[in-house]
């Protein structure tokens, strides 16, 4: 029988090329992660700018309380920041400091938005439904995910529903006051138009409270 020798030189060359491609793949993945991280800095600045802008909008709304242009714009930005935060949480982790910083500012932005909405509701006889969602990312549960999905659906499909989400990890005095106000001891909890709701299994449940 003719004994065959593996062509080690060709296999070695193939292994080297494969290792090079493999490293390039890892490197590209890492570069994209870095890009996401650099996005974090831009996002931080953007959220900070939006926060400043809401102050100006507050003043403007005092003069033109029923103009909703500014609020619509801010709502869109809130949605984008919310989606980006989701992505960052997945990429960098829910306990990442930068993510938590952005989230803190995001919550402040939401609170400002809420105050503006509430003012408009009162002064312009607007009937937007304002919903608070208190949840915990650290002790996440299926119930929390289900409620988040229903609220996301409501936000997408009903223009007069505004949802404000508050992660329990972010400790802010304003949030603590709200939790005491609504007697919130366990999470997740939904507050619709100032009423604490214990059960939210479907969009019909939600609509029944409006």
């Amino acid at each position, binding site marked *: *029988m*003719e*004994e*065959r*020798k*593996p*062509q080690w030189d*060709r*296999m070695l*060359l*193939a*292994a080297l*090329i*494969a*290792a090079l*491609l*493999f490293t390039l*793949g*890892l490197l*590209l*993945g890492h570069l*994209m*992660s870095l*890009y*996401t991280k650099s*996005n974090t800095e831009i996002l931080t600045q953007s959220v900070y700018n939006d926060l400043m802008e809401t102050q100006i909008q507050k003043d403007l709304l005092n003069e033109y309380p029923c103009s909703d242009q500014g609020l619509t714009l801010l709502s869109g930005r809130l949605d*984008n920041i919310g*989606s*980006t935060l989701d*992505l960052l949480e*997945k*990429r960098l982790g829910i306990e990442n400091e930068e993510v938590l910083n952005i989230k803190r500012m995001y919550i402040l932005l939401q609170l400002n938005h809420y105050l503006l909405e509430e003012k408009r509701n009162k002064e312009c006889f607007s009937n937007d439904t304002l919903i608070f969602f208190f949840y915990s990312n650290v002790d996440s549960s299926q119930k929390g*995910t*289900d409620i988040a*999905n*229903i609220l*996301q*659906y409501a936000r*997408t*499909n009903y223009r007069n529903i505004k949802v404000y989400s508050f992660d329990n990890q972010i400790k802010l005095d304003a949030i603590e006051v709200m939790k005491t106000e609504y007697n919130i001891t366990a999470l997740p909890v939904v507050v619709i138009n100032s009423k604490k709701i214990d059960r939210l*299994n*479907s*969009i*019909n449940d939600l609509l029944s409270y409006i």
Partner: protein
Amino acid sequence: MTSPMTVIFYIMGFISLFTSVLYFLSFIVENKKLKAPPWKGSLPKVSVIVPAYNEEKSIAKTIETLLKLDYPKEKLDIIVVNDGSKDNTLGEASKYKKFIRIFTKPNGGKASAVNLGIEKAKGQFIATMDADSFVNSDALLNMIGFFQEKNVACVTASMLIKDPKGFWLRMQAVEYAFGVFLRKAFSLLDAVHVTPGPFSIYRKTFFDKYGGFSEDTITEDTEMAMRIQSKGYRIRTSLTSVVYTIGPNNFKDLYYQRRRWYTGFLENVIKYRKLLNPKYGELGVLMLPTALISIAFSFVLTVYSLKTSINGAIDLVRFERSIGFDIWGNVNPSFFVIQKTVISLLSSPIFLFGLLGNIAFITAFIIVKKYTKQKLHVLLGFLFFMFFYIIFFSFWYTVSIINIIFLKNRQWRKE
């Protein structure tokens, strides 16, 4: 922390990259071996054996394509072995009795039918031809030249699926077209481990020395390929010789076919385990070990994918129920969301390796199309293949492993 599944994906990603690079490298380095050199001198006599069991629908066309072979008629010896058919196979074959020889025997299985043909054959080379396959006219001429290399015992053709329509056939069309590329790569590395029934040509002296097809195995073609390898002979593949075969067009038939193939492959790997040795070249150190690792990986991947898909499906159904099954209500594909999704995918090395794998896949199709000069019908099938093939692949292997362990259903239907 990196999960065990991620580590497995990375290991398999590297193995796939390595083997793919090796295949393409072989195509580049062995460029001159892609086609057979023309036969020098007078062409040798070739016997073509067509074993047939209940093939009344296709055998006439099979014989016609053989009669149209671009090869001197006096050098062509076409033999039909009717393996105890219960239908009109014999009648259909008899229409061509002026040009072919027909033998009838009691039903004993494909291997026994081919062995009778070998016994009666007059050629120096013997081709096997399934009675549901159709060969292109230039196939034989493009193959015979490979036998000028003295230790080549077998040359296989490029096998494609005939008229691939519907889910099952389109998926197989992709598998077969990619298989043409793989078999050629294996051939360049001396690592072919199956010589398919549709138009593989053998040197008759090999049969004289080592016997005909094994009648004890359910995949006589795998056994023969491994026997050839174990005796130190070579198997070549002709990219430019195209043979079409009729694939199973429903799950049940495909299931039986694959259970037989994969059980037979595993049985023969066990039987010829001595091939797992560096003295058998790339076959021993790379191809057979990689094949076994791929089987194990596909099983892990399927279990993982099924678990993830089932959990995902349960979550989706629960969510859809909560919003009154307003399927499109929650779809909001803004540029922002798409951009974030793309960035997220590109950040994942596993996704990037998958992308690279697809580029390699498409390149393989381009090579196959260039050499076979055939329409491959793989566009739609490619999607089916991407999403479903690995699930079926691991399912068939799981069934085959269970089959081997529990020794059930291993009797090959005598066809």
